Structure formats: structure tokens, C-alpha cells
């Protein structure tokens, strides 16, 4: 798995090398030293600004931790702002970061619109921008994160397998979206819809916004369970939020009877939740690996010396199914360590 990322990164680097201005005459006896010098000089002392939607959950914490380590290993510095789920604060933080002119900006968009104009402004100010997981309507140099459409499709197919035609189940599915206008929700919803379209027995009885909040997911699910005691599956767009739905199902005594699916990258928490049977299956993207990819891609962008809007690339995260007893233990990271 690690290998695949490295390969992808290397390929990307080659692509950049072709597109951007390479240092003159990198061949001959001295070429290794020159490449070394170029790479070091391109990164040393550079600042990576990082704006998550919030801190305090495993995903953003591990990202931040790994990114910082990776950046420091390359002689770069990471600065982080935590808007704590506030779009107002997030926007202000973004504006101020642009004002501070970092060398690279890494953004986690609360929704597809909010930062769009600011991201454009950042590029105009000469700052390359990498978007992580939650993408904006305004695409920048690189996107790193899952192909959410694929995530939705995979989740949908799993639901069909459990609840679809021939399963003998009701086929009723409840969907807990995140922030509705988040790239994550929009993508997964499209994928789900595409998958469900293939099996007419699947009925989405509820599709509501949980706004990344486990409490809200709990409340929604509790209500849905009352209206549809024969619910077959609950799908959540983020495992941390979906725990709320799982708790509601557990409280209703339907654990195991109602299947719980979610996507996520919460490490140890996800592992524990599938082990305890709270969540049936998690479709995981390897968060520490994503963080490494961010810095790697960022490093390539900086070395390439290209204009921030010179290219638009994506590095889709590898997806891994996790279910009770069946998952790669490497996915169970503990960010507190």
C-alpha cells in the first residue's frame, strides 16, 4: 500500500518535471549533487499553511501530525489554523493566511462554495493550493483524497448486497449525509444514487444532513427507526458521525439487524467500532498516508517552480474495507502516540 503511493508520487513527479522548468543540464557526474541542491533549496525554510475544518478528531489530528513531521523532515514549517467548525472563522483564517503569503496552502473546505473565491485569490497571489478530502468548486493545483463518487458506489453496492433484491430484507436505507454542500457529501451521494439505481428494491427512506455531528446522526436515526422499524441499513458519510446513528440503532436493540456502513479514516476508533460490531463496515482511506501524499505532492509543486494554476491534478486515496476481524492493522493508527 505504501508502495503504491510512492509509485504514484514518483509518476506525478515525472509529470511535473516534464511540465515545469527543470534546473539546467541535470546530467553528468555532478547531476546528483545538483538535483540534491535543487530539491533542498526549493523546500528549505518554506512554509506550509494548513487550514482544516476543525481539530480534535483523529482524522485532522493525524493529518496535522504527519504533515508536520513530513514537512519538518524536508526543512519546511507547518502553520495551522483551527476554525473549530465555524465557517466565519475559517474564512477569516483563510484570508489572513493568504495575507501571510505562505509557500503552500493546504485547505480542507467546509463546503464547495465558501472558500472558492479566496482560493482563486490565493492562486492569484502566487500561492499553490492543495485541497484535502473536501474539495471546492474551485479546483486548484492538486486534490488529495478519495474519489468520493467511487466511495459512494462501493458503499451502495455493499448495501445492495445486504438489503437488495433477493436478500429478503426490506430494502429500506437511511442515509446520513455530512454537510450537504460539502464535496464529500455531494460525491458520495452521487455514487450512492448511481449504485441504488441498479436495484429497484432499495428504498432510501431518509437522506438527511448530519452536518458531521454524531448527535444529529443519532437523532435522525432514532426518528427513522421509529418510522421504519424494518430499516435494513444506515449509511453515513463519515464514520465519526455515523457512530451516532449506530448508537441509536443499538439503543433500539437492532444492532446487527440494521447494517451500519460508513466511510472514514479515523484509525483506532474505526477499528474498535467494527470490532465491537457497532459499525458493520467502514470504507477506510488511509489518513496518515494521505498526509504524506500532501507533503509529497506539495514538495513536487514547490520544486517544479510552476505557476500555481499551471496544472490541476488529483491523487486519489486507496480505499480499504474494514470489517470485524478483517482489516489491515496498519489502518488502526493512534494519533495520540
Amino acid at each position, binding site marked *: 500500500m505504501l508502495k503504491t503511493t510512492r509509485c504514484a508520487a514518483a509518476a506525478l513527479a515525472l509529470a511535473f518535471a516534464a511540465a515545469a522548468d527543470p534546473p539546467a543540464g541535470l546530467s553528468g557526474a555532478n547531476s546528483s549533487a545538483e538535483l540534491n541542491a535543487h530539491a533542498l533549496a526549493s523546500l528549505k525554510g518554506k512554509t506550509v499553511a494548513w487550514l482544516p475544518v476543525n*481539530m480534535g478528531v483523529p482524522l485532522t489530528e493525524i493529518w496535522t501530525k504527519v504533515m508536520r513531521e513530513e514537512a519538518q523532515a524536508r526543512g519546511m514549517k507547518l502553520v495551522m*489554523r483551527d476554525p473549530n467548525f465555524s465557517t466565519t472563522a475559517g474564512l*477569516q483564517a483563510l484570508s489572513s493566511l493568504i495575507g501571510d503569503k505562505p509557500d503552500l496552502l493546504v485547505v480542507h473546505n467546509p463546503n464547495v*462554495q465558501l472558500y*472558492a473565491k479566496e482560493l482563486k485569490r490565493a492562486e492569484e497571489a502566487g500561492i499553490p493550493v492543495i485541497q484535502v478530502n473536501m474539495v471546492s468548486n474551485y479546483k486548484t493545483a492538486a486534490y488529495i483524497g478519495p474519489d468520493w463518487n467511487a466511495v459512494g458506489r462501493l458503499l451502495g453496492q455493499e448495501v445492495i448486497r445486504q438489503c437488495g433484491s433477493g436478500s429478503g430484507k426490506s430494502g429500506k436505507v437511511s442515509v446520513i449525509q455530512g454537510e*450537504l454542500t460539502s464535496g464529500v457529501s455531494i460525491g458520495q451521494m452521487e455514487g450512492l444514487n448511481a449504485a441504488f439505481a441498479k436495484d429497484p428494491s432499495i428504498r432510501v427512506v431518509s437522506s438527511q444532513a448530519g452536518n458531521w455531528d454524531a448527535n444529529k446522526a443519532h437523532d435522525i436515526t432514532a426518528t427513522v427507526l421509529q418510522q421504519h422499524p424494518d430499516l435494513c441499513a444506515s449509511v453515513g458519510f463519515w464514520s465519526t458521525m455515523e457512530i451516532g446513528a449506530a448508537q441509536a440503532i443499538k439503543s433500539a436493540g437492532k444492532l446487527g439487524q440494521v447494517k451500519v456502513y460508513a466511510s472514514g479514516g479515523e484509525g483506532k476508533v474505526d477499528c474498535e467500532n467494527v470490532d465491537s460490531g457497532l459499525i458493520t463496515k467502514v470504507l477506510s482511506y488511509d489518513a496518515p498516508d494521505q498526509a504524506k501524499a500532501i507533503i509529497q505532492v506539495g514538495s513536487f509543486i514547490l520544486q517544479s517552480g510552476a505557476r500555481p494554476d499551471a496544472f490541476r491534478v488529483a491523487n486519489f486515496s486507496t480505499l480499504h474495507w474494514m470489517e470485524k476481524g478483517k482489516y489491515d492493522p496498519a489502518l488502526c493508527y493512534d494519533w495520540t502516540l
Partner: protein
Amino acid sequence: MSSGVRYNGALMSGGIARRLYHRWSLRLFLSELLAKRWMEPAIPFVLMLALIAYFGAVTPNYATWGNARQLGREFAEMGFVVIAMALVVISGGIDLSVGSVFAFANLTALGLFQIGQLPVLPVIAGTLAAGAAVGAVNGVLVGYFKTRPFLTTLVTLIILRAVVDLLSQHYSVQLAMGSNTSALWDFLGGGALLGIPSNLLVLGIVGGVGHVLLSRSRPGWHLTAIGSSRKAARHAGIAVESTLCLTYVASGMLAAAGGLFYAARLSSTGSDTGVGWEVNALTAAVLGGVSLSGGRGTVARAVIGAVIVFVLVNGLVRMGFPGALTSTALGAVLLFAVGVDVKWAKNRVKAIQKIYLNPTVVELPPAPSTARDSGTPFAENDRLRDSEEIGLDQVEGPEDVILDRQDRLYCGTRDGLILRFSGPRFEQREVFARIGGRPLGMAFDRDENLLVCVGGMGLYGVTPQGKVYKATDETNRSWFKLNDDSRLRLADDLDIAPDGKIYFSEATIRYEMHSWHLDGMEGRANGRLICYDPATRRTRTVIKDIVFPNGVCVAHDGQSLLFASTWLCSIFRYWIDGPKKGKIETLIDNLPGYTDNINRASDGCYWLALVGIRSPAFDLAMRNPGFRLRMVKQIPPDEWILPGINNGCVLKFNEKGEVLESLWDPGGRKHATLTSMREHKGWLYLGGLENNRIGRIRLPDADPDWNGFDDYWRKGKA
């Protein structure tokens, strides 16, 4: 007789430092400063500047034009919401729904523009109408149905938030993916005029107009009045219901305007749009000095508060504070602001009272003896004990008395009337005029109009027919004085020069009629001599900074003016004509009592009322300002030591300032607080500020035909 005391009480002894110390006082400055209305927003304003300066210093690239523009753009929407909140708070209510109205407007604007594909102007109109509609719901409930603003708007907040969530559920993805654009829309969202972001520009205009409307227009005053006291406003005839209703409508529209700009700028329908903004707005409003209890605040203050909150939050975000800590900090600021608001509202007046009074040193030499056997002209006697009573228990506080050519007796009373007594024994009492205020000194002009100094109002006149007219109620304002001294606070006594100019004293510009004795506690040169010229209708201050100028009398030759300085126990002469014109001389000083009104006597001398007699303990207190200060602070007013005004005494002095004789009512059995006397046809009429009668005694040696009016206006014509 004079030893050269100055009318402003400047110390004659001690070093220059001591004199300056007592002449200028930091406390005086502070207390007058605190009393100013603009002091209230001054503190938030300074705080705002300090915050900006601080973040400018610690944050790189902060103090740049680009950053300022960016901050301005981000600030503007919150500015609208804060003004919306402030308006309602000033009206005595609260609008918790501003945040959800903001979100609702954002969604409405985006919906109309992206889904409805409407042109921008209808979008603006529709959005504002939506805000107004929500405001109208609040307004009707609060204004007409008298529901509690807190609960009402809380319900609106919840319902509207649910509506926003529901609509988002259906449309937000569509909105987020919408692609309708227009130049005007882009201008609203990201345009600028003269470098000023569009939304900030509109905020500035709305704020400016709102500020003027609120603080300088009738509807604004109504709003403030309702906020101060709904009941009182209703009694005053203000349409409370409709005004309140409109306030909420305005609040809704303002919040909607914020939402509109937000929509245009970000096209974002995030679920947390406007969440918690009501708290931020409330914090900002209170921080800016809009009182939570209503009735106090302006738009400008709200905006100042908004800037503080915005800069603070923004600064903390910039400095990389964790989000939760920023919210906590804001909460702490709100708590602090509310605490200060409550304390300030409660204690400001008290604080001013505590430090308003600023005693200074008044040093008088030991008083001449008044003992019966002292042999001085001041020797105590009982010559006023047998005075005839006029209008006993029919007058309250005839400070001054005067008689007209028909021998009718006039006096002012403490309930603002001018009474006239007539008949051979003055048994007929009639109300000659109703002026209001506190009528004090009086004089007849050439046309037999009665000019009256009215404490709290100014200089007024009454025609012989009893018609009241205003002569003047203001003079030129002096520079470098915090207290606006152009209005007349305590016009005291007057006299009229041969050229018709009216000279009058204003005893103090720092105290009102009801607290005149506090000026004595202070002993400062707070009074002035003012001249009003009826020919030009102009008023100007002739002498500033006099220690309680009281009685005024034009000398027999018409060339000079005598005026009394009460706390200095002195008489000064001010030349208004002749070779010494403009000069001020000390005529008599160190009298044994406090000088009040001065009037002409028939024999070319002058009568002087001593309103009180100096007691040695009070003299000592006057030399000890610290003692007086602590007395005022520590013990109730009824217990303060006062000048000894439970006494009646009239003196006669000549043109040279020699005191010739005195007439006494020791202990003031009949004439306590004797403030005036008037000679008329062989009698001396006596008035007293706090008395329940007018008295008169026969003057056996006086010219039985002499009267004031003829002496002033018919001299040589008879």
C-alpha cells in the same frame, strides 16, 4: 478698607505651587469629563483603537491597505447584524433571531438568484422583504401583543433555523452548484468603489443614516424613550406599539442586508451560516456601550463594539488560537461587557456626584466682631425684630422684593410665580406672572418692565400687563471648558445701567438652584457677570471666574457696578463708564457675613443683605478643602456644616465702601436667610430666600418720597 482680595478668590498666601494646586484640579477635570455624554463611547472607542494597534503590531502584514480592505469586506456583514441587534436592544428588547434571519436571507438571496434566475435588483428587494417579514412577525408579537422579546425572538430563531435547514436539505446542493452570474451580483459580493469594498460602503451609508435617525430625529428619540421606559413613553404620547413593531422590522431588514451581501460574496449555504451570530452581535452591542436595559446607545457605538469583537476574533484566529478558545474568549468578553454595563449604568451618576464637588481653599482673615458691645458698625442689635409682616404664609421664598411707582410690592417665589401685593397694608395678594424656574433678583427698566433673573432659566421680563417674555438664556461659550457654559444655569441678580444695558450675575455654572449651597462647599470661582443689551439683543460674559457673584447694583452715578461675591464676603466695583471703564476694584472685603443683594439707599449710600454670618468653624472649614471633601463624601448632606444662614442682617455702606450701620435679627427669628432689602418711601422691605413672609421696617431718617424707580429713571426730570 480693602486688603486686595481678588474676585476669583485667588489665594493671597502660600507659594505659587499651592495656589496653582488649588486653582486647577485634576478631579475637577475628571468629574466634568465623566459627566459628558460622549464619555460613554469613548472607552470602547479607545479599546477599539488599542486592539487594532495591538494586532497591527504583533501580526505581520496587518497594517496594509490590502488587509484593511479584506478585513472591511469580512466585517461588513457582521456590522449589519450588530446594528440590527443594537436597534432592538436600544428599544428595550432583544432580537435573538438576527442570526437565523441572516441565514434565511442568505438562502433566499441565493435561491432567488441561482434557482429563480432573477435579476439582481428583484433579488435584493425579495431578500430584504423576507427579512422585513420575519421582523414584522417579531414586531407584531412584541409591539402589539406585548410578548416578551427574549422568548418571542428565541422562538423565531428556532423556527427560522428549522426552515433554513429544511430548505437547505432540498436546495443547497443545487445552490452550491449554481452558476448564474451577473456583474451587479459580483459587485455586491466582491466589488469596490474608490477602493472601499461594496458591502462596507453600504454599511457605512446605512450606519451613518441610522445613527443620525436614531440620535437626531423624532422616531429615533421615540425609540430611545421607549427603551428607557415603555410606560413613560406611552404617557408622553409616543405610539409605542407601532414604533416597536417598526424597530423589529428594521432589525429584520438589516440582518437580511447582511445575509444578502454574504450570499453575493460567498454563495455558500453552509449549515452553520449565522449560527451564534446573535451572541456575537449582542456582545458587540453591549461592548460598544449599548445598554442591555435599553434606552442608551447609538448606531456608532454598536459599530464600535462590532469592530472590537471582529478585530478580537479575527486577531485570535490569526494568531492561531484554537477555535474553542476563541469562543471562550468571546464569552468572557461578553460577560465582562455586561458587568461593566450594569455597573456603569448604576454607578456613573454616583461616581460623578462623588467627585463632582471639588473644594478649594477660601482664606478669609478673622471676621470683625459682631458682639453687641464691640463698638463696630457690625454690632448685633434687634432693629429687624419688630418688622411688620407682609404676606405671612402667603409667599414661599421671596428672594428679592421690589416696588413699583404705584407702591405695589413684587416678589418671586420658589414655585416660579411673581406675586404682587397691593393696598395700604399690602393685604391684596395676586399672581402677577407665572414664569416658572426660580425667580430671584428683580429690577424695573425704563419702560416699567420688570426684569427677573430666573434660576434654571435665564433672564426674563414681565411687562406691566403681566406678559412674560424671554430676554436671554445663553451667553458666549468659553473655550477650553468641558462644561458647556453657554446656557445660563443660575442667573441671580441684575441691575440696569443708564444706557439700558442689563448686567446680571450668574452665581455658578456648576450647580443648579436646588444645590446652590454645594457651590459654597466648593468655594471655587464658578460664577460670572454677564451683560445683556436689549438694543442689540446680544449677551456676552463681562467677567468670568467670580466666586459666587450675587447682588448687582449700578452705582448712583451710573458709572460703575457693584457686585457681591458671597463666599468671599466682599463687594467689588466694576467700572462700566468713565475713565476707569473696564477696571475691577475691591470695594469692601472681609465682612462678617455672606454678601447677597445690594440696592441703593435714599441717602446716596447702599443697602447690603448679609445672607448669613460667618461662623468660625465654617471659616476654618473653608480653609481646609480636604476636610470639606471628606465631609461631602462621608456624611449625609443634612449633616454638613453650612455657612451660618439662620440669621438676618442688613448693612449700609457708602460710596467709599465704609460700613455705616447694621440692622439685625439675630438667629433669624423672623428673617432667616435674609437675601434682599429694598428702600421705598421711608420703609425698608426685606426678602428672604427661604422665608414665609416679607418684612418691612420704617426708616425714620430716610427721605419719605424716595423710591427706586424714580431714582433710576426720573432723576432730574421730576
